[in-house]
């Protein structure tokens, strides 16, 4: 087993753009669930909308800023469509409707009738030009050890993590503000907040839009190192983001970031170790495909154990536990 390589890959996951994208999506989900108490099980849809909302205008020739604004605008519209029928309903209805809406969006971008726009099941690619064009880093390879990347890879990582930092600061400031106190109040006791004359529906909608907007930006970061593939946006993606958020702590600032890093490092480590064990013949009855599946079995078990034994996550405060239902 090549431990150097396995550890190198795992350490590299700490700053990978995928980790940043999941962290950003988990921060958005934290605004929904951690702070406001909204059971959004459709976060994958916000990532999908961010991805297509960015890729389609870019492929049509739009400049970078327009494409990003388009992605955010689409996610805001989607948040309204999602929120209007569901935010008046009880939490578990919201869960089912958001998960359903996320699947509807995925079916729509996968349908063959829209191949010209969305590429159907093949997805989209070739949209990295405008982002790469504003890269200030000269061409070349930089870094040391496991952190050696070319100029484009560094550019995605820098932009991704700067956005994560900005989002964290934004959430931190928001939750310290009077607005944040109201949404946390909604999480604790909706009726109490309503009796104080606050428009609960409107606050929930604002939280949904903000978290969804962060999700759509995460969607853009997510596709920059790869192509847009509709198969990436299944409910599995939502559940992974939930695992990450709960791992770090739902109502915390650093929780989603650390949760995402741990999630990806552990996934990379288990993959490396399992593959290594299979190659060296230590696991004769398992194939490499099956090794990939073992990791997801572990994710499922980890999610269960986490929610049962430490629902507040690593950083969370037991008092600020938001499982009020």
């Amino acid at each position, binding site marked *: 087993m090549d431990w150097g390589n396995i550890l190198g890959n795992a350490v590299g996951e700490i700053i990978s753009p995928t980790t940043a994208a999941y962290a950003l999506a988990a921060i958005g989900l934290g605004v929904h669930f951690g702070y406001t108490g909204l*059971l959004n099980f459709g976060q994958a849809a916000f990532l999908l909308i961010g991805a297509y909302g960015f890729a389609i205008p870019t492929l049509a020739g739009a400049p970078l800023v327009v494409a990003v604004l388009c992605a955010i605008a689409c996610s805001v519209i989607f948040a309204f469509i999602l929120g*209007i*029928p*569901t935010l*008046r*309903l*009880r*939490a*578990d*209805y919201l*869960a*089912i*409707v958001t*998960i*359903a*809406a996320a*699947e*509807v969006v995925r*079916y*729509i971008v*996968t*349908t*063959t*009738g829209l191949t010209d726009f969305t590429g159907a099941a093949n997805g989209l690619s070739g949209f990295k030009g405008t982002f790469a064009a504003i890269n200030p880093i000269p061409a070349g390879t930089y870094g040391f050890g496991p952190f050696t990347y070319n100029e484009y890879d560094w550019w995605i990582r820098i932009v991704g993590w700067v956005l994560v930092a900005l989002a964290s600061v934004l959430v931190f400031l928001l939750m310290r503000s009077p607005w944040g106190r109201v949404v946390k109040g909604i999480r604790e006791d909706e009726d109490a907040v309503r009796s104080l004359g606050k428009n609960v529906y409107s606050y929930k909608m604002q939280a949904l839009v903000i978290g969804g907007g962060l999700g759509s930006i995460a969607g853009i970061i997510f596709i920059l190192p790869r192509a847009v593939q509709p198969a990436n946006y299944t*409910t*599995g993606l939502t*559940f992974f983001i*939930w*695992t990450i958020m*709960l791992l770090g702590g739902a109502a915390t600032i650093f929780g989603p970031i650390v949760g995402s890093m741990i999630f990806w490092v552990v996934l990379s480590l288990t993959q490396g170790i399992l593959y290594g064990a299979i190659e060296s013949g230590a696991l004769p009855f398992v194939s490499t*495909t*099956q090794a990939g*599946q*073992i990791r*997801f*079995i572990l*994710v*499922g*078990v*980890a*999610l*269960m*154990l*986490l*929610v*049962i034994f430490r*629902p507040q996550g690593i950083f969370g405060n037991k008092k600020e536990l938001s*499982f*009020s*239902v």
Partner: protein
Amino acid sequence: MIAGIRIGHGVRLATMLLAMLALCLGIVLGSGALAASASTAPAPTPTPTESGDFTTTYTIGGILRDGDTLIEGAEITVAGAGGYSEVATTDDTGRWSVAVPAKGDYTVTLDPESLPDGVQLRDPDKASAVVSATEWQTNTITRSFPLGADTRQTTGFFEQFLQRLVAGLNFGLLIALAAIGITLIFGTTGLNNFAHGEMVTFGAIIAWIAAVLLGINIFIAMLIALVLGGVFGYLNDWLLWKPLRKKGVKLVQAMIVSIGLAIALRYLYLFFIGGDTKTMSVGLSDAVALGPVRITTGSILSMIISVVVLVLVGLFLTRTRIGKATRAVSDNPSLAAASGIDVDRIIRIVWVLSGALAALAGVMLALYRQVSWDMGFQVLLLMFAAVTLGGLGSAYGALVGSIVVGLFVELSTLFIPPDLKYAAALVVLIVVLLVRPQGILGRKERIG
């Protein structure tokens, strides 16, 4: 005992459904026309690549024929980048081919004037076809031009409607079998069980192992799946949900635990049976033509079994002591416990019943559309849609919701592309919640 009244409706509804089914069969038998089968255009054979030439040649070619008649002397123009243009004429075997200089984009045009008298393009607008640069996986590309009158028979709208109606009813009954389990568990414990889809898959996999791998008769396999499904439900409750109830885990927490369980189980299935679709070849796939409707014997069987089982479940809930106790727990667990009902025992029974029903639904689903590791998860959302549509916690509602979802999934394909049919059912869910948040048959207080 409001839940009781609703479940009482369930029985009435089930008899109504039986009547509906009989009506459908009546219509089907009454009209005598046979279902039209689509005859497809003859597939063009690829032009053989010329051998003996050591430089690679790229060719575009095809065979031109009208039915079985080969067309000779028709002119086909291949045009490409840089003003490249070449005309080919079909030979006495109807073959034509053009050697092109490179892999690239080409336009292939058939000159309709060069066709013999009486032969026309089937679709006059399709006189030209495009070859794109990305298609050149091999050195030969084939293009065909369908000729002659359109021989593909189209089924009338009414026949298609009937066909979809029966399929939708079948699918709806199938969802109902599994969804009643979801609604009973929700009613008695308040849990939204996201791992219910995996109970469905469990039944399908057991039936596949028994019937296909071990070669046991499908009906016995069905019984095995039913029993093991019940055991699986019992284990679910005994190993996981009962300890969690004792621990006082909140409902949302429990819901996320069920999501974790679903992920773990789903990938466990994938680990053991692999990612490919397993064929459920047990001899129940013969198509029977009932008037304009073609239906497989498996589907007929599945509809009959679904209706019988649904009626039995309805009778169980309304007529037996345990059934009545179940409804009492659904309505008010504390009051039920105070009046001497062993709530834990009832919940255990509900889990066994739900597991068995889900496994049975899984077997039906396997007969309907084969076995795969994520088959249950694919219908989970439809089951939730059905339960939510009908009103969470209402057994009667689950049945109505399931039929609505089943019919909608199938009937929507008459108007929208088939790959959007599940999306249509989920959109209906959202729309219904917009205008009637408590679901079709739910009570207002349940929406909170």
